Structures are given as C-alpha cells and as structure tokens.
C-alpha cells in the first residue's frame, strides 16, 4: 500500500522529449489508469515509476521517501508486463518463486546444489511454497503450477504473471498493457477480474493502457496522457462527461465524440452548420468546435438533416452514421431501439440538447458555455 507522487517528471531520449513535466499523485489504494494513444509516453512513465528507466528530471516519491536512483527491486513494486515476461525455462511455480527466493534467500542458499543442503533453505522453501499456494488458490491456478509457460494459454500466463506480482506483497502494482495480448472475450473477462482483485487487495494499482474502454471500466481514476503531457486527471465518468481538452474528448468514449465546426457569433451565441444554438459563450467571437456524444443525438426531428450512410447494428444498440446535407461532416448517433433503424440512403432530421454540447476553442481547450435560461425552460417543456 503506497501513495506515489510524481513531481515534474521529464524524460528525453537523445533530443526527443518523451515526457514534458508530469505532476501526479496516486493515492493509497487508488486504481489509476494511465491512458493515451500509442507513443504518448505512458509506458515510459510507468517504467520511471518502476525504476527501470531513469528520468531526466523530476522526482518519484513513494510513501514520502524519494526513490530516485534506487534499484527497481528495492522499490518494492511489482510489475505485470504486456508479454507477461515469464521465465520460459521455469515452471509456473518457480516463476512465482523467483521474487521470493531473491528476497528471502542469501546468495549461498540460492546455489543450485549446495544451497539445498542448508537447513535454512529448507525452512524458507516451505514458507515460500505456502505463500505461492495461497496466491495460486486465489487466482485459481493451483493445478497449473508445475507447467512451463509454453504449456499455458494466454489467459493462464496472465494469471501466473499476476501471481508472480502478488506473492511478494508489493507496495503497489504496475500493469503495462497486461490485457492487450488476450482475445477480445477474455480481455473483457479479465477486466472484471482485475477490478475485483483490486478491491480485495486494496492495494495501489497503476495501469497503463491505450484502450480507453479498459481504463473507463476498471479504474477509480483516469490520467489521460497525450504527446508526453498529462492532459486531464479525474474519475472516469467526469472525464467522459467533462473533457477539458478536445483530444481527451476524442480519445475517451466509443464511438468517438462527434466534432463539428462551430462559430461564436458577435452576439456571443454559438452557431453550427448555420443553426444558432441556445448557448452563449463568454469567449471572444471566432471559430470554435463543438462536440456531441453519439448517445445525445436525437433522431427524428430537428434543425439538422442528413443522409444515412451506414448502420452498425450491435444487437443491443446500433450506431447510425449520418452525412450532413451540404457538408463533408459525418456524425454517429446511437440508437437504443434496434428494431426501428433507418434505411441506408434515407434522409432524416436530428437534433441535440443544448446541455449535450461541449465546446472547444481553436487551440482545443474547453470553453464554458451557458444555456440561455428562458429557452432552456421552454426546451424542457417540449421534452
């Protein structure tokens, strides 16, 4: 259990800056997901926390003590790797035993033949076996302990790797895209399992993923990284609902948020595709972009119209792709009732509520908008 603080972490490889000053506090017992597109520096940040990579500047603090320059093993963190990184020549049991043996046995006791003759080694081995059996039972891999990694399926290897991290009872767990090598079904299953594991261990988890769905469903907090910067940190629902940056809005949520080119008029109202929204912005007049999540687009009637280009029926829900009349813009609308789907090629009208709009300035930063009071009331009355 640990509280991990990052202060001004920078990292450059040669001339390229990968991380540009990351400040982040991970509270004790947090499940924090570092999420962002490939190459945003999230794995590098995790490796810096683990001690596998030295930072160019800044400090890593674990439970109040600065750990810069301390060996990875001495930081008492455990890491689960994307490729699982199990030792291929050792059985699952021995894989899990390695961190315990390295920690509890002396160099002499670890010697292959001589070591096993020492009485202390026998006693320690018994304790190690008991510890591993306990964790294996918890992860339901007791029957697999004698197998080599090559004889295990992806999901089983995953569990052994998690087991190897658990047996040493670390201060915190670091996960580096641990589910991305699994097939889709297993990934969803393991998501739930890891979240349950976090609840039962009540330990600090730092989880790196490029899959926003994983991050949204598992973590208690989300840290969105883009281009080496920490763009937004918060609870998943908050980030989904209140993105502070257009890149966050576009990264989080599937299907991607609908972005439309808009304009702040001289009377401070926002206009999109020639239609004036019942929203006012305090920002100076000029171009902006507005985002609306697919589930907030209401098909049927409204000032906007377009042609149906494509329909994705997922069974429980469907996504209707609409090409806006007279523009290049395409929108995706979520339809909950899959029995009443529009035909491809048909024309339809749609609308979205004023409070569904997230507006961003030309630099991509979120701008506050206020709904015009009387209009809003009337709108509610209509609904």
């Amino acid at each position, binding site marked *: 259990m640990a509280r991990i603080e990052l202060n001004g972490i920078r990292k450059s490889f040669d001339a390229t800056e990968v991380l540009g000053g990351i400040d982040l506090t991970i509270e004790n017992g947090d499940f924090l997901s570092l999420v962002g597109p490939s190459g945003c520096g999230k794995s590098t940040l995790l490796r810096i926390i683990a001690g596998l990579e030295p930072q160019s500047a800044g400090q890593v603090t674990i439970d109040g003590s600065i750990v810069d320059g301390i060996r990875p093993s001495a930081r008492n963190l455990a890491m689960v790797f994307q490729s699982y*990184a199990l030792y291929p020549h050792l059985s699952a049991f021995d894989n899990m035993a390695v*961190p315990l043996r390295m920690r509890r046995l002396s160099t002499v006791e670890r010697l292959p033949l001589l070591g096993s003759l020492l009485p202390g080694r026998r006693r320690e081995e018994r304790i190690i076996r008991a510890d591993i059996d306990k964790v294996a039972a918890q992860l339901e891999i007791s029957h697999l302990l004698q197998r080599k990694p090559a004889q295990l399926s992806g999901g089983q290897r995953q569990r052994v790797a998690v087991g190897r991290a658990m047996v040493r009872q670390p201060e915190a767990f670091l996960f580096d895209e641990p589910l991305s090598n699994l097939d889709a079904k297993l990934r969803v299953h393991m998501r739930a399992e890891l979240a349950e594991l976090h609840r039962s261990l009540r330990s600090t988890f730092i989880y790196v993923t490029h899959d926003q769905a994983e991050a949204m469903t598992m973590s208690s907090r989300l840290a969105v990284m883009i281009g080496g910067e920490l763009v937004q940190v918060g609870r998943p629902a908050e980030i989904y609902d209140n993105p502070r940056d257009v890149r966050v809005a576009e990264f989080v949520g599937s299907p991607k948020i609908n972005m439309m080119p808009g304009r702040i008029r001289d009377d401070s109202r926002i206009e999109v595709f020639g239609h004036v929204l019942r929203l006012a912005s305090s920002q100076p007049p000029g171009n902006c972009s507005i985002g609306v999540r697919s589930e907030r687009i209401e098909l049927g009637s409204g000032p906007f119209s377009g042609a149906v280009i494509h329909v994705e029926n997922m069974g429980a829900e469907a996504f209707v792709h609409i090409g806006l009349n007279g523009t290049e813009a395409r929108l995706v609308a979520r339809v909950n009732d899959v029995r009443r789907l529009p035909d491809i090629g048909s024309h339809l009208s749609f609308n979205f509520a004023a409070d569904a709009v997230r507006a961003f300035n030309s630099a991509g930063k979120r701008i506050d908008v206020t709904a015009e009071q009387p209009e809003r009331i009337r709108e509610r009355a209509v609904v």
Partner: protein
Amino acid sequence: MTTPAKLSLWSVVRHILLVAGAVVMLLPFVWMISTASKPPSEVFSSELHLIPHQFALWENLQTAFAKANLWRFLLNGVMVTVSIFVLQVLVALPAAYALAKLRFIGRNALFALVLFGILIPPQATAIPVFLLLHKLGVLDSYAALVLPFTISVFGIFLMRQFFRNVPDDLVDAARMDGISEFGIVWRVMLPAAIPAVTAFGIFSVVAHWNDYFWPLIVLNSEHLRTPPLAVAHFRNAEAGTNYGALMAAAMVIIAPLLVAFLLAQRRFVEGIALTGIK
C-alpha cells in the same frame, strides 16, 4: 504433358549433381575407413579397391593404441576443448548481454570492434601471442593451449545476435524480481540461449579439437599432445608410415566429434536459425 518429363529430367540431373558433391565430400572419410580396415600389404598394393580383402580394422586399432597413448591424447583434447569452451562462454555471455541489452556510451563502437575482431585470422596474431606466452613462461602447457582462445569474438557476436531477440520485458521482469545484472546473464539469458550456446559450442569444440597449427607451435612435451598432433606422430619419415594404424587413429579422434554432433544436431540447427545468420 511434357512438363512432368522435363521436371523429372531436371530432378535426375539435380540429384546426380548432389550425389557427385556428396561423394566428393565423403570420399576422404570412406577412404580413411577403408584404409583403416586394410592390412599393410593391401594399403601399398597397386590395385585400387575400397573393400579390403582381409579385414584388419581391429589389428590396426590395436597397433594404433599400442604405438601411442591415444587415451591420453583424447583426454588432452577433451580437457583443452572443454576448458576453452567454458571460458569462452564465461566471457562471451556477459559481453554479449552488455552489447545487446544495456545502453551505454560507446556500445556501437565496441560492437564494431567485435565485428572487426572476427576479420582477423588467428595466424596473424600467432607470433605476438607466442611471444606473450613465452614471457609469461607458460609455453608447453595446457595454459598455452587454452589461454589464447578464451575470448571468442565470434562467440560474442553470435550470442549478441541471439540476445537481441530475447524480449526486453524478460530482462525488466528479472530486474523487478531483484536479480542482479550478472544474475540476469546466468539465470535468465543463458537458459533462454541454450540453442545458441549449443551451436557456438559445436563451432568452438570442432575448431579446437581439430586445431593442428597452434598446438604444434606451443607444445614440445609428448604428454600434452592434442589428438591431431598425435595422429601426425604416426607419420614417420624414417621407418615408413603405417597408414593402416594412422587411419585407425584418425577414426578414433573424429569419433567423439561425430557423436557429439549427432547428439546436438537439432539444437545446432535451431541455434543458427534463431540467430538469423543462417
């Protein structure tokens, strides 16, 4: 339907060529076995025949073992090649690990030097090394046979190519588990690299088991002789060479290599294929 006929004609030609090549390669060995099985009278007869009229392999072997202490020479060969191989691995694995997995200034320059080292034939450095061993006073000893070969640039190169394919995650996992850098070499990299080590072992053992040049230069004492020197000793300009016994001795000294190769054959091919230098 001319194509199958053409194809079969080509495949006949192809096989004839291959068989001819195989015969050229195998003939010296066949001739060795043939000569080793002939009594002296047949060895020197003017007519050429492969199958001896009188089978004398056993007698020739007995003569060979009686004339020279072949067991001693075989033992010398084993001690020298095994020592060389073990020391080469002790040096090459940590060096290859550093070149493949650690980041440090001058790594590429060092690796270039290793590649450059492969280009230098051992004969080119023979005289300086000989003088060095002379100054050290270790000429005419096992040390003189072993020491010059403890650093194998080829071994470093081969292992480095193999280690590059070992995932970085595995090394990082070992570091998280608390294994030291040297520990990683022996506990993580070595088990992963067994095929490559086997391949390198075969190269190394074959080269040094068969080495004639270096032992001939540094050795005087008979009891230190390696197998090729021992065989050469059967040649005797004054009393005439006993070819039957010589060939029998030659058979005896290549037998261990053949057996070792057959045992390690699969891993050998695996190792070479995995390093990507097939």
